[in-house]
């Protein structure tokens, strides 16, 4: 059983998805999904333990040895992502029942859960697999189910957002497919470990460089790295609230993983960073992304869109850490992957609670909400502080590591710019605080509020408050006791550089 864990991690939600059809009743399906998701979390915790005690795990599918069959390889880098994805999916699912009862038609509930499980299994597959073509297949499983999930949003703009994401996402995935094809043409293998060995031995590098560029551009499309981010704000804004929370916590993190996996494990840092000025390019794009997205966020009137732009800014921070090309920088990136998932899932879940109670996430309709929904708004404030990077929150920890990594290289200008970017975050978080706490509740205003919304809004139900405060608690806990998260990130970064921890 223990030796089958790597495959169970991916297969469990994949097999569970069609079983949902048999259960039919929404509440039953929800319970079933919750159990499956928590089992996946349990598996990933076991995998973390196994990897930290006995090193990377190789798993050959169906008994076919690795160059012939598809192999899964779980190492220090994957487990970090596995645990982030499964934990976020489980916590977000707790609130799913009430949220989708409000936002999705009852006859579609079962399909919602099926798509949710499929996207979960796809993301886990991308992360767990050790086969380049398998990455593409799982990428498309995730993407297709996510397009459909986004299209379930109430507003008709959800359809348009989903369509745009579909076009961009498919182009990105096809670029990755071209790159993988070129690598196969040159090396005759698809296994990542084999690829890294044979790519390094090749005398002629031009085809490999072309493949590299195709893959990087494809991954950056999925990553929503500025200026390829255009699909993200609308997709996050108009998707059902639960989907926004799940995507914000996981989808872009998986793309960051792919970027790191391809540059470090497949092509190797020597080829990735020497052949084209990738580091300079990423540093510039990261910084521009932080500023453009943060400033755009300040002017948003829809709070979900505001946080979607803030997500793009935070992708900038992750890319900055990546662009240093050092162990410290990569640790900061991976740490931020972990921490940003905690912040954004808390924020988007809190917004889901707001959506449940007042039927809108427009800034204007949140006036005086600090008194009507004290716990939810307090959670938004605390997670917002974490987003800014205030000490004692996780946001501070990852910004600190990032600053140290940048200063290590003597790049004071970039360090200063990062701090300025954080100040922009203060402005957009403050706008919400101002509206929620210092304005009188607007009782008579209808405006954007959906019909049927409760006039005198009250606190969100426990099924929301428990996961939200769990995440806020994690934001603070991992901001103080950083051992678990930094150790995971550090050993992952070190394993990529071939340094034994």
């Amino acid at each position, binding site marked *: 059983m223990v030796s089958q864990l790597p495959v169970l991690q991916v297969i469990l939600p994949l097999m569970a998805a069609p079983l949902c059809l048999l259960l039919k009743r929404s509440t039953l399906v929800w319970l079933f999904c919750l159990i499956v998701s928590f089992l996946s979390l349990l598996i990933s915790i076991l995998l973390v333990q196994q990897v930290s005690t006995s090193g990377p795990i190789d798993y050959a599918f169906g008994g076919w040895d690795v160059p012939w069959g598809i192999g899964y390889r779980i190492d220090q880098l994957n487990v970090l992502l596995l645990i982030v994805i499964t934990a976020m999916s489980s916590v977000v699912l707790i609130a799913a029942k009430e949220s989708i009862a409000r936002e999705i038609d009852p006859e579609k509930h079962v399909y919602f859960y099926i798509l949710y499980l499929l996207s979960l299994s796809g993301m886990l597959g991308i992360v767990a697999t050790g086969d380049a073509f398998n990455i593409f297949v799982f990428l498309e499983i995730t993407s297709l189910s996510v397009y459909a999930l986004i*299209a379930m949003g109430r507003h008709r703009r959800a*359809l348009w957002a989903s369509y745009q994401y*579909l076009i961009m996402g*498919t182009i990105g995935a096809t670029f990755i497919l071209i790159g993988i094809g070129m690598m196969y043409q040159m090396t005759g293998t698809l296994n990542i470990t084999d690829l890294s060995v044979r790519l390094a031995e090749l005398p002629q590098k031009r085809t490999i460089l072309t493949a590299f560029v195709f893959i990087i551009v494809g991954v950056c499309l999925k990553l929503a790295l500025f200026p390829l981010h255009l699909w993200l704000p609308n997709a996050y804004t108009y998707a059902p609230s639960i989907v926004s929370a799940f995507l914000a916590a996981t989808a872009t993190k998986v793309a960051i993983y792919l970027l790191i996996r391809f540059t470090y494990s497949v092509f190797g840092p020597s080829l990735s960073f020497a052949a084209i000025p990738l580091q300079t390019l990423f540093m510039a794009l990261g910084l521009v992304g932080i500023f453009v997205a943060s400033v755009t966020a300040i002017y948003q009137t829809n709070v979900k869109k505001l946080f979607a732009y803030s997500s793009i800014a935070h992708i900038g921070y992750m890319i900055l850490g990546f662009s240093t090309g050092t162990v410290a920088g990569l640790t900061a990136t991976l740490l931020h992957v972990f921490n940003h998932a905690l912040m954004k899932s808390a924020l988007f879940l809190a917004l889901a609670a707001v959506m449940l109670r007042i039927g809108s996430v427009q800034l204007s309709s949140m006036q005086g909400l600090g008194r009507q929904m004290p716990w939810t708004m307090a959670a938004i404030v605390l997670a917002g502080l974490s987003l800014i990077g205030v000490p004692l929150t996780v946001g501070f920890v990852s910004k600190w590591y990032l600053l140290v990594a940048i200063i290590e290289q003597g790049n004071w200008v970039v360090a200063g710019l990062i701090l300025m970017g954080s100040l922009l975050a203060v402005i957009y978080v403050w706008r919400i605080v101002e509206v929620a706490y210092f304005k009188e509740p607007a009782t008579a205003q209808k405006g954007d509020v959906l019909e049927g919304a409760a006039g005198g809004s009250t606190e969100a139900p426990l099924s929301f408050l428990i996961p939200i405060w769990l995440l806020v608690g994690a934001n603070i806990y991992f901001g103080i006791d950083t051992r678990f998260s930094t150790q995971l990130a550090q050993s992952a970064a070190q394993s990529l550089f071939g340094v034994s921890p």
Partner: protein
Amino acid sequence: MFIGLANTWVAILLMMIGLYIVIAQGNLIKKIIGLTLFQTSVFIFYISMAKVEGGTAPIFSSDISIYSNPLPHALILTAIVVGISTTALALSLIVRIKEAYGTIEEEEIQGLDEEQD
């Protein structure tokens, strides 16, 4: 160089045509046609890569010694399925967009969205 890499040139040409349609056309259906063309060009790239000169179909038999590489065929079979699912999903999205907006022209949809703001 041109003759030896003829298959690659065909793939690149189709790829560019497809990508151009996706970017330049405002009609949602036409965009999907471009996207499919773009994907198909990659399939051709894979399939032509598997060709071995003088090789036959990859059938296991004692009198066949040279045969095409079957692995890219298998890979592309999967990619074709993915492509079809994408097209199907996109088309059903377009049906819903038509119901919700009453048009499938990109500019008109964006105009309708801006009107609402």
